[in-house]
Every structure is written in C-alpha cells, then in structure tokens.
C-alpha cells in the first residue's frame, strides 16, 4: 500500500504544472506539452506492460490511429476537435480489442514480436488510404494557443494517472498483477486472464490514442512515418521501465526526468545528445533495473549498497 505523502505531493505538482502557461515562457510550455504527452504515453503503456508484464510494441499503432482518427474526422468531415478525439480513441480501442484477442494468447517475447509487426502493417495500410492522405499526410486546421494544448495534455495525464491509481488498489488491478506474476496460477485461481489482458490493452489504447489526437491538432500535420513510429514506442517502454513499471507515479516521474535530460543534452551538445542519452539509459538499467521507485525503496533500506547489489544480483 502507498503512503499518503506521494498523493499529496502529486496533487501539489499537478497544481504547479497547471500554472506553467501563466508564469512560464513559450519554450517551457512547448517543452511541457511534449513532456506531458510522453508521460501519458508511458503511463498508458504501464497499464498493460507494467501491471500484466506484457511488453507491447503495438502502442505506437494506437497512437497513430489516434492521430489519424482525429485528423481524418477534422479535415474530411469538418467535425470538431473533441469529436475527432473520440473517433480516434474508438478506432484505437476497437483495434486493440480485435488484435488483442488473438495475440494476447502469445506469451513473453512472442507477444512483443507480434506487436512489433503491427506497426509496419498499419503504416503500410494508412499510406495507401486516400482518405488518410496516402503517404503525403494530412494538414489539420491551424489553432494558435499552446496554453490550451498544454492544459489538455496535463488533464489527460492526470486522468490517466488517476486510472492507474484506481487500478493499483482494485480487484481489477489484482487480476492484472496476478497474471504478471504467474498466469497459469492466476487462471487456476479463477482469473479470466484473456478478459483482463484485453481490457488492459483497450484501456492502454484509449489514453494513447487521445494523446496522439492532441499531438496531431497541436502540430497541425500528420504523416504515416511519424504517426506509426516504433521509436516512439521504444521511448514509452524506456520511460516506464526507468520510472518503475507497475507503479502509479514511476512512469510519470521517469518520463519527466528523461525528457528533461534529453532536452538539456540536446541544447548543450546537440549532435552527441542521442549518444549521451543512450549512456544514461545504460547506466539506469545497470544500477536500477527495476526502476526509480525500487531505487527509492532500496536506498531507504540499504543506502548506496543498493546500486551495487543490483549489479551483483543480475551478474553484470
């Protein structure tokens, strides 16, 4: 069970973040939108990946469907942005359910590989759909006002995190964690694993797609290559795992830190940033393979020795 103080702290952080458009500059707000959307993606990935242990590389498909659902609804049907978001989310959730039922039978690396194939397939399909602008892409109506997008992204992250908070203390979440810990034992104890895995994937798709839709309208342009981008999925995994998969605040904290580190590196040393970013990831995996949340608990128990114990235990 979680203590009270992380919740209080989270509420305070959310209030301060909500004020950024008023006292921050344009650069801060734009960085904020990206960071908040990425945190939402990491948190959405956490619902399936963190709680059930199924590593999905298909979440960028849901992101892409969210961006395209919103873009097509707004450009071809002149629907309002809100309706566009709903269209994108519904398409992504349907895709998650349809794809999830067959491929969530696969376990471990096989599931990951199957989801990896989805991305390429979906990008190819969209590239050949005239309604989606084929491989040229779609241009959305322009709306100035970064502050609105910022607050929308923050609201989405808050709702997504509240959902994960609910999961972490609910019967539903117990089923997800039981599946992660031992799926056969969970089944023998009455957990309908298929039902819980598929709903977790659908829930994950919901938030991922809305994040995609917000990003589409904000950037006013979508194309297949950036909508169905596997590296975006890799970032979700890294951020979630770095923060602490299966925890409530780990993925958010992890992605904020990594976004900030990347931003600093990109402005300081530009071209070599990716290299150093890679180094940060490697160090994180070596010293805190279970994420920052585990690092905090471990450091409280055994101090600095925690870091080196990880190396020993994992025979690195």
């Amino acid at each position: 069970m979680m203590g009270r103080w992380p919740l209080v702290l989270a509420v305070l952080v959310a209030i301060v973040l909500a004020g950024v458009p008023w006292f921050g500059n344009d650069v801060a707000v734009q960085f904020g939108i990206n960071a908040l959307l990425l945190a939402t993606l990491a948190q959405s990935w956490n619902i399936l990946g963190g709680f059930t242990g199924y590593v999905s590389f298909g979440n960028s498909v849901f992101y892409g469907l969210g961006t395209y659902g919103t873009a097509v609804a707004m450009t071809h049907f002149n629907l309002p942005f809100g309706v566009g978001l709903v269209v994108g989310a519904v398409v992504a959730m349907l895709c998650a359910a349809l794809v999830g039922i067959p491929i969530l039978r696969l376990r471990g690396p096989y599931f990951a590989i199957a989801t990896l194939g989805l991305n390429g397939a979906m990008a190819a399909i969209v590239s050949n759909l005239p309604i989606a602008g084929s491989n040229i892409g779609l241009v959305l109506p322009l709306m100035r006002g970064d502050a609105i997008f910022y607050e929308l992204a923050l609201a989405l992250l808050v709702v997504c995190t509240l959902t994960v908070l609910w999961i972490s203390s609910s019967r539903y979440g117990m089923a997800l964690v039981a599946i992660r810990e031992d799926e056969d034992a969970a089944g023998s104890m009455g957990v309908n694993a298929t039902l819980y895995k598929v709903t977790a994937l659908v829930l994950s798709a919901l938030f991922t797609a809305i994040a995609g839709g917000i990003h589409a309208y904000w950037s006013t342009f979508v194309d297949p290559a950036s909508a169905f981008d596997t590296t975006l999925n890799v970032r979700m995994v890294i951020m979630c795992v770095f923060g602490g998969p299966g925890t409530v605040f780990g993925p958010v904290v992890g992605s904020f830190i990594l976004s900030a580190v990347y931003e600093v590196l990109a402005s300081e040393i530009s071209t070599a940033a990716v290299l150093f970013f890679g180094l940060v990831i490697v160090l994180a995996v070596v010293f805190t393979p279970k994420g920052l949340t585990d690092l905090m608990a471990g450091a409280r128990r055994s101090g600095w020795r925690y870091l080196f114990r990880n190396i020993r235990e994992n025979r690195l």
Partner: protein
Amino acid sequence: MNEVANVAPQAKTIMEARGITKRFQGLVSVDKVSFSLAENEILGLIGPNGAGKTTLVNMIGGTLKPNEGDLLFEGERINDVSPYRRAHLGIARTFQIMKPFPGMSVLENVAVGALFGRDGGEKSMAKAREIAREWITFTGLGQRMDAHADALGGPDRKRLEFAKALAMGPKLLLLDEVMAGLNHVEVDEMVELIKKIRARGVTLLVIEHVIKAIRSLSDRVMVLHHGERIAEGDPALVLADPRVVEAYLGKRRT
C-alpha cells in the same frame, strides 16, 4: 465392503472420471482411469514417479484436456471448461512446483483466491482481505501476513499454496505433493491441517509420496502405475497389496 470404508453409504458423488486417457505423442500418461469422489471424502492418490498422478490432477484442474473419457463435476461434464471457470465451479488445486505470486505479499497472494475463486469470487477488496487473513491464520502463516511471497522458506510456501487454494472457497481441493521435502514434525502439522480442512466440508484428492501421511488421512487410496489404476480401496489393504508393493519396489527375485 472395503471399497467404501469410512464413507457414509448415502454420500453424494461430487466428481467422477469415466475412462479418461491422456496421451503425449504416443506416450500414454493416463490410461482409461475411472474413479469417483464422494462429497467430503479424502482420496489418496499414490504411485511411483511418472505414474501419471500430476497429469490426472492437471486434467481435473483443466490445464490439460483428456484425449478420451469424461470428467464430471456435480453431474456436469467439464471436459471443455477452462481452468478459471472450474475455479468458479469450486475446484481448487495446489501445484507440485509451487506457484506463489513472488512480487506480492502473503496477504495479497491469498486475497487473489478470495477475489476470483468460487462463483467468481468476492467483489469487495476489504472483504477479500478479511477472508484472506482468516485462511492465513488458519494455515499458520499469521506471523508472515505482510512478508513477500518469495521471502518465505519451503514449509511456509506450502502453507501459502494451501491458503491461496482455501481462500477460493473450494468444494474440491486437489493437493499435489504438499508434503514433499517436509520433516516429520512438519508432515504431522500438514496432516492435521488437511484434517481440519476436511472438517469444514471440503472434498480432497491428495497426491502424496509420504505413505505415513496417506495412511492416516485417506478414506480410500487409489494407486496409479504406468498410467493405469492398479488398486483402489481401504488404505491398509491397498498398501499391503503385492501389486502395489511391486510397483513401488520392483519384483522380488525368486
């Protein structure tokens, strides 16, 4: 008369197997085995390694499907019922290779049973925790309530498997070698525990190599050898049966 020793004559049949067979690519693991379990009975299942005991339990639990024959639970055919639905019907099991949820506390492990067991389980977390606490205390793990499951030692892990299965509120409990690796004192504790469980109205199928325990627990004993049922009945008579002795120790050279 030996066939029904210790069992009340009017007892209802809770589970029945009719000629069930399991083959693994030509190797017959369980061969046309038929038996029935009366309500609140303890049936001991023994046999040398590789006799097909665990395969039989896996078929009743639903993780394996028989190639032939029928399994009936409370009169309904359950061959095609998935494991989680069998749990809802009231069938619970322990695993020979124990399967605790390592990242969860003892309390959470057992609460999973209460949350998803018989009839789909308890819907309220608070109630499930309460049920879990009861069974943890019942199995003698009360001191380790908040310990992580992977921090438990051997005997405590066995108790945890028990508590998890019991929290499901089963009608039929399948125990797969819960005494393996325990010392004499621990075996006696386990025997007492199983007797207490039966006193609560649960029917038990107990796979065990510890003959002393089987003798003191079972109403009836069934012996499997090369997948076939070679003997069944009163424990004392079955354990003295020359065929059973031969299956375990080999033929005496004459």
